């Protein structure tokens, strides 16, 4: 417990939309040196990217529930598009349907962020707090990767692969 307190006090605070204040490797290094091997193993297994909503581990249950709800809503949006019918969202706000893909992704991430905040309330300085910190840091890094220059490169790599080779 004390280790978690020390770790969480040493880490910079995170707010939605900011540039990641700490490198991921640094976070991992700090966590590895402060947490027990068992706790660090749990932390290593958790990731926003791989979360499919099926894990049964107690610490991850609530996070997976949130993720599985999100995936259901995303599926619902996809199905409504193919079936050309009205969308009925269970968790996400209806505004995600009215905005462009970038703003929609940002709204979804904000929703995830707020839900992660809700999950950590009352569990300050615990392993859950550290896990949530990691997930939020991942969200910040993802958000930070949204750049017009990178987007252009990705689009060109698909649409104009010859141009990319010439460059």
């Amino acid at each position, binding site marked *: 417990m004390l280790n978690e307190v020390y770790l969480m006090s040493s880490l910079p605070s995170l707010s939605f939309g900011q540039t990641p204040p700490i490198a991921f490797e640094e976070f991992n290094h700090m966590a590895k040196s402060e947490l027990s091997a068992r706790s660090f193993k749990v932390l290593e297994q958790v990731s926003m*990217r791989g*979360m*499919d909503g099926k894990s049964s581990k107690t610490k991850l249950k609530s996070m997976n529930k949130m993720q599985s709800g999100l*995936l259901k809503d*995303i*599926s619902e*949006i*996809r199905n409504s*598009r193919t079936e050309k019918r009205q969308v009925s969202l269970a968790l996400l706000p209806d505004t995600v349907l009215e905005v*462009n*893909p*970038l*703003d*929609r*992704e940002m709204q*979804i991430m904000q929703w995830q962020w707020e839900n992660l905040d809700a999950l950590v309330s009352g569990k300050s300085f615990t392993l859950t707090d550290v896990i949530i910190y990691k997930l939020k840091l991942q969200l910040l*890094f*993802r958000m930070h*990767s*949204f*750049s*017009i*220059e*990178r*987007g*252009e*490169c*990705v*689009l060109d*790599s*698909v*649409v*104009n692969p010859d141009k990319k080779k010439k460059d």
Partner: protein
Amino acid sequence: MASLKIKYTKTERARQKKILKVSERMLPLFEAMEKSLMATILSISEKIEEIRAAIEKNRRAVKPWLAVMGDEWVDVNEYISVNKTITHPVDVAGIRMEQFERVDFNEIAVSPDTPLWVDDALIHMREQLQLLAEIKCLEEQIKLLEEELLDVRARVKLFENRRIPNAKTAIRKIGQKLQDDERLTIATAKVVKTSAVKR
């Protein structure tokens, strides 16, 4: 033109007249073909411009959300690539060429945890790739038409500058020579006749 060798015979004159007649009949046909090829090239170029405008319009439409394609969690290249461009043969201005039909894509279905923006990006990329492939086909058509146009232009020049003037010159020169020969024959005959009468 200077080195033009002419046989001053009636047969040669008849042959040159035939060449002139055929050349004068062929020239308008080649000129019409030249015009038709130029018009076709122009219309294909206009179509290419229209497609380029459509590509630009799509690009502008995507610009407000282009940044999301930089998402480090997704490699959109995994989801779509061009397998091949499907075309069918057509005759354009009398030339056999390939007409764009559609693009066959290698596509991987998105998984449930794939971010939603990928769906929109794939729609955009599919459309842009189709338009670019169509431009490539049309440019290939223009290349073939331009090769044909060069050939036709060479023929027009050949008829205009060589065959028709050469035939006309040959006919004129043979005519003059034959007339001179005729006058000479008549004059010789008269001289012979006069000297025969004197004796």
